[in-house]
């Protein structure tokens, strides 16, 4: 009893005292998990991947890119990305076969990252999304396996195609039947990076059972004590491992680059920001913070969901997002598209300002920007807009315009892109979703 309270007290005090300074950048020279020593510069720099999602398609007239590198030209919808031309890949013509011929909207969304066929009616069934595959494989060494954020709450009604609207609300799926719960509140997303979540929750459970094991051991016979000692030893060892991960995260940043303070962020207020601009900026900041401090290496950020009810009185645009997308060649919709690529640029800017090794966090990341359809008015699944930003630790070339549209179906699958990206993240699978080939030329 007393030990529990004392432990709670001390950790709480510790947390309060530590505040934001605990979120310090990750440092490559400090042995991270399990005491692996640094093996040459750069080899230990973590790679991160984030999917940034905007629903309801784009204005096809204004969504284009030409040329390469510094001389790359960008269509009006992509203008905010001009400063990042050299870090950008404009990828055209990829498609998700499971999203074709199933009707519009939810059937184009819930499988965007899985390539799985979706089930209509009351039963929710699709497939695990590739970000969660990564989270499952890479998550053990992180405070959080993945960060799943959104700026619009999920909904669960039925669309006229008889797909559940849940498919339109989630891009990250933990399994065929369950989406990953999405955090919409900035304050709670911020808290999730702190230690009272994730691994620290495991630590609390271990403290608790340790106490019970010690009690039980006192009552047990000598030979039984030996068996219980195995348990106690295991508890201590797992605690030590968690503490090691925590320490490496905490000590990180003490001199990553002298004179270069890491990015810090005050805890956002409780509740939901009324202004969507503030909301999206906070979510991008939190994602950037999570990457900088290596709390996770996998994230998804759903800026708006399918059939979005987002509205943008500040643009100025009068209609809500979804209805406006039906008028996709309008000037207003281009403004909305620009607003979203602006969010991507903002996040890229944040990551670029974070020093890491010889470069920046953006160098070691890939921001994968996608929508669930091409033309907003035609809802077409023949291709989806895809952008990448960042270089995944030098494994991903950038400054390119890649177009797969005229190629055979088997050579332009989204899941092939995912396989290629997962390879670079160190997770090599023989196949994923509907693809068993990597994407050529990426």
């Amino acid at each position, binding site marked *: *009893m007393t030990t*529990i*309270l004392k*432990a*709670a007290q001390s950790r*709480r005090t510790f947390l309060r005292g530590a505040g934001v300074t605990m979120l310090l950048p990750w440092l490559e020279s400090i042995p991270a998990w399990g005491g692996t020593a640094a093996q040459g510069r750069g080899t230990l720099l973590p790679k991160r991947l984030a999917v940034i999602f905007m629903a309801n398609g784009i204005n096809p007239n204004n969504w284009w890119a030409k040329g390469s590198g510094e001389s790359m030209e960008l269509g009006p919808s992509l203008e905010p990305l001009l400063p990042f031309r050299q870090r950008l890949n404009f990828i055209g013509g990829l498609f998700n076969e499971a999203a074709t011929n199933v009707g519009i909207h939810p059937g184009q969304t819930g499988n965007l990252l899985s390539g799985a066929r979706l089930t*209509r*009616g*009351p039963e*929710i069934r699709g497939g695990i999304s590739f970000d969660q595959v990564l989270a499952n494989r890479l998550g053990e060494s992180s405070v959080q396996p993945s960060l799943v954020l959104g700026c*619009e*709450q*999920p*909904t*669960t*009604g*039925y*669309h*006229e195609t*008889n797909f559940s609207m*849940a498919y339109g609300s989630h891009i990250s799926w933990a399994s065929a*039947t*369950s989406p990953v*719960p999405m955090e919409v*509140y900035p304050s709670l997303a911020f*808290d999730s990076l*702190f230690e*009272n979540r994730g691994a620290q*929750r495991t630590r*609390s*459970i271990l403290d*608790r*059972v340790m*106490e*019970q094991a010690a009690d039980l051991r006192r*009552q*047990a016979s*000598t*030979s*039984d004590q030996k*068996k*219980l000692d*195995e*348990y106690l*030893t*295991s508890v201590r*060892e*797992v605690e030590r*491992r968690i503490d090691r991960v925590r320490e490496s995260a905490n000590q990180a940043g003490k001199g990553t680059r002298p004179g270069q303070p890491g990015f810090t962020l005050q805890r956002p207020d409780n*509740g*939901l920001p*009324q202004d*969507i601009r503030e*909301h999206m900026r906070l979510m991008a900041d939190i994602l950037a913070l999570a990457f900088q401090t290596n709390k996770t290496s996998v994230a998804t950020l759903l800026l708006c969901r399918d059939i979005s*009810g987002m*509205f943008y*009185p500040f643009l100025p645009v009068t*209609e*809500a997002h*979804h209805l406006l997308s039906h008028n996709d060649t309008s000037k207003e919709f281009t403004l909305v598209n620009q607003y979203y690529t602006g969010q991507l640029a903002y996040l890229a800017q944040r990551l670029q300002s974070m020093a890491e090794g010889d470069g920046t966090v953006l160098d070691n990341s890939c921001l994968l920007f996608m929508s669930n359809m091409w033309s907003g008015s035609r809802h077409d699944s023949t291709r989806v807009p895809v952008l990448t930003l960042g270089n995944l630790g030098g494994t991903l070339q950038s400054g390119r315009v890649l177009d797969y549209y005229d190629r055979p179906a088997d050579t332009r699958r989204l899941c092939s892109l995912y396989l290629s990206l997962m390879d670079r993240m160190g997770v090599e699978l023989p196949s994923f979703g509907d693809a068993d080939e990597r994407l050529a030329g990426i």
Partner: protein
Amino acid sequence: MIASHQALAAVAVAVVFAATSSCARLPPSLASQTVPTAPRSANLDHRYVTDVQPLLKTYCHSCHGGSSPAARLDLTAFDTTGRVISAFDVWERLHGRLDRREMPPRSAAQPTDAERRTITDWFAALRAYEAERNAGDPGVVLARRLSNAEYNYTVQDLTGVDIAPTKAFPVDPANEAGFDNSGETLAISPALLTKYIDAARNVANHIVFQPHGFSFAPYEVLTETDRDRFVVNRIMDFYRRQRTDLADYFFALWRYENRSALGLKGASLASIATAGGVSLPYLQRLQQLLHDRKGAFGPIAGMQRRWDELPAASTRPSEATVRAATEALRDYVIGYRKKLAWTFDVPRARPLHIASEITAMHVNRQEVLHRRRLNPHVLLAADTADPAAKGYDADLVVPSEPAARAAAVASLEKFCDVIPDAFLVTERTSPWLAKNQTGRLLSAGFHSAMGYFRDDGPLYELLLDDGGRRELDGLWRELDVISNAPARQLAGFVWFERTDTNFMLSPEFNHLRAEDLDLASDVKFGELRRLYEAKVAASGATAETRRMTQQYFDELGAAIRATAQARAAAEPTHLEHLVAFAERAYRRPIEAAERDAVLAFYRQLRQSGLGHEDAVRDTLASVLVSPHVLYRVDVVRTAAQSRIGDHAVAPLTSYSLANRLSYFLWSSMPDAELMARAAAGDLHRPEILRAQVRRMLRDGRVSRLATEFGANWLGVRRFEEYNSVDRERFPAFTNDLRRAFFEEPVRFLTALIRENRPVTDLLFGDYTYVNRPLASHYGMPQPDGDAERWVRVDKAGRYQRGGLLPMAAFLTQSSPGQRTSPVKRGYWVARNVLGQHIPAPPPDVPAIPSDEADLGSLTLAQTMARHRADPNCASCHATFDFFGLAFEGYGPVGERRERDLGGRTVDPATEFPDGVRRSGVAGILEYVRASRQQDFVDNLSRRLVSYGLGRGVIPSDRRLLDQMQAALRANGYRFSGLVETLVTSPQFLMKRVP
């Protein structure tokens, strides 16, 4: 080899004799079974010094002595019998190697056979003596964690759902006896502990938070879709259980009215309702409707006429005839009722959008109000109706004369009241969608947005009794509380009114976001409502539109408030439930301090910032990985300490005993009744224990004993993962068939245990159990029902099946791919079934081709005969190959066959050790019945002792084994005899204390 086996058998017989005779002198009570420490036999001491030691000195000491003895075994150290006893396991091995002539090595001087026997006989006698002196010794049974299987079953019994949290864990290692339930092998490591924590978390994620306590769903419940699935399924399950087919009611009434002719003289309407599974109150209403002839008009008159025309039971109509007649009556009634029903179109209620939730809800409400009402607008007046006109329907014509019309309408109203247009409606879609949009269960029918709507008035009012009504009300209340539906409906409302109707795009609404969970707070909801209603009013809405708008917000607001209150009130009940859960999981009464600690942990988590649900989940996870749950530590009543032979022992506490018993028979925690017996403190009494054993053996949970004991004993526990069949060559071998192969012995054993059949049925029973895939494989007739249904097949010998031996799982697992392996099959029979000890083969055995087609001109039997011509192999193989050869009538996947894969005719006839030539399974069984049945029974007893105690069999168990076999013989070999004897033994009831 054969000689040595016979020698062992001789010793065993001697021990049996000694044990039985001493046993007979002992009173049956447990206390007196405790043998006091006896002085060691002077005779055995003397023989050791005079006979044995000189031989050891002559033949052994030169190697196993001196400063660096071979194999670090110094036999010179054994200067007394006492020393030998203290190193019994060393001497067991020594005895075995001497007996098998492995020692002394061939290069050394060899003792004569007589000298060899001097040593082995002396040791056997010492062993028997010591065994008897220590009979009943509980042995060393270590505390241990639960096995993966036990953990799964325990979680299943705790939560009520089969989550199988350890299914991805590494396989538990088995002990020497082949079971994974002993402390020697069940270790834990940091990696495994991490898996347990993840698994416990996963279980906690299945919690469904309810208004009173919590339960578990078969899937994780973290997102809204998960919660929806849970609440919707429960209500749908309730609805599906209701009988709403009028034909069933008419049929029940017909039976009642014809009860004399049907020989149901004593039957009441209630008993017939119960038998037919229909609602009694509704049956009574229908009965009235059919017999109240006064004023009957239209459909009532029509159904009464048709009722009278139903065949009388005295004419002996077939049931199908009557069923068909009642169905025709139903169709008439429903057809007529449809014509009298109300329909409602979505009103055009400007400024509300055509797809507005407000108008949709208005329509829903109207429909509910009119389910049992006549729609007078469809009626036609007799004097004006034109039979030639379009839409004319004679059924709808009522008299024009006012009094007659009033009577007709009254009759129609009565009809509509008793026969609703629908008992319940479970699916709604928005009216402008295609009608094939099915599956939107319990939906309010909003366009795109979520919302639930209850439409079961007639079911509730007409069919349900008070209990049913309470249950259904509770389920609907829980729907709101669990899924938080009202607040979510509000969020959907705001989203839809912004994105699809544009109504809320005007700037005064800008600060109200659908994403905001606080939108349902009194303040924000009130503001939203005020602004919305103001805009409706300002847009020139009619009074009715304003009213339906207000009503929408009234109802939604009330539901939001009620749900919020219920959710807040639920939290303390979750904590109570958590403590109760911990107590059940600890499998003993929880102490006050432990209760406080559970709650303190929850509060600590809340303080650290977790929400209520996460804090409950983590607390539950901490319970599930607690050593009190994960470990089985037997606790004793030390005050009652006594001695058995060389060891101090004490009885287990009641709760430890209850746990030992339930983990033995159910691989899981004790149930409520067993815990109640433990609480009453009388579980140690043999008659109570026996009664509990009999109860538990009848319970379905013994399928776990069949799986964990039976399938491990028989070596097929992991057969569901067996992958060594070439599926191209054997396309019939599908995953379903593989699963059926595995289940066959498990089901056989389960039934044998539950029905308390003779254990000899395992060998000789002329029956087995099959489902559809297995029946096809065995060439048996297909059982009725779905593919998962299992049936018992008697006289299975017709198909060359019956009992364990010809089951496909064993025959397949012992076949290396493209051929059978008589060696492996024979080995399996000898070792697993009959308990024969067979030493490992020498390392230089040449391989037999793995494909029968590659054997050339020889059959497998001929190839093996050539192999056995080698005397090195022959001595061993002669003791089991014949079993395998007799199985040659079964192919590599256990299929019956005449020819092998090389096209040669197979011959399952072979010579058995008694010189008789026999063939097939029948031949094996004949031989076993004549010569080896005792081996089978002894083996089964040993395996069960080993499994039940969680340790290997030790010599001092001999008396227990004899008693178990005596119990079998005294009771027609029924299974319960084994278990009852075992659980009332000192080994089971006590534990060694230091």
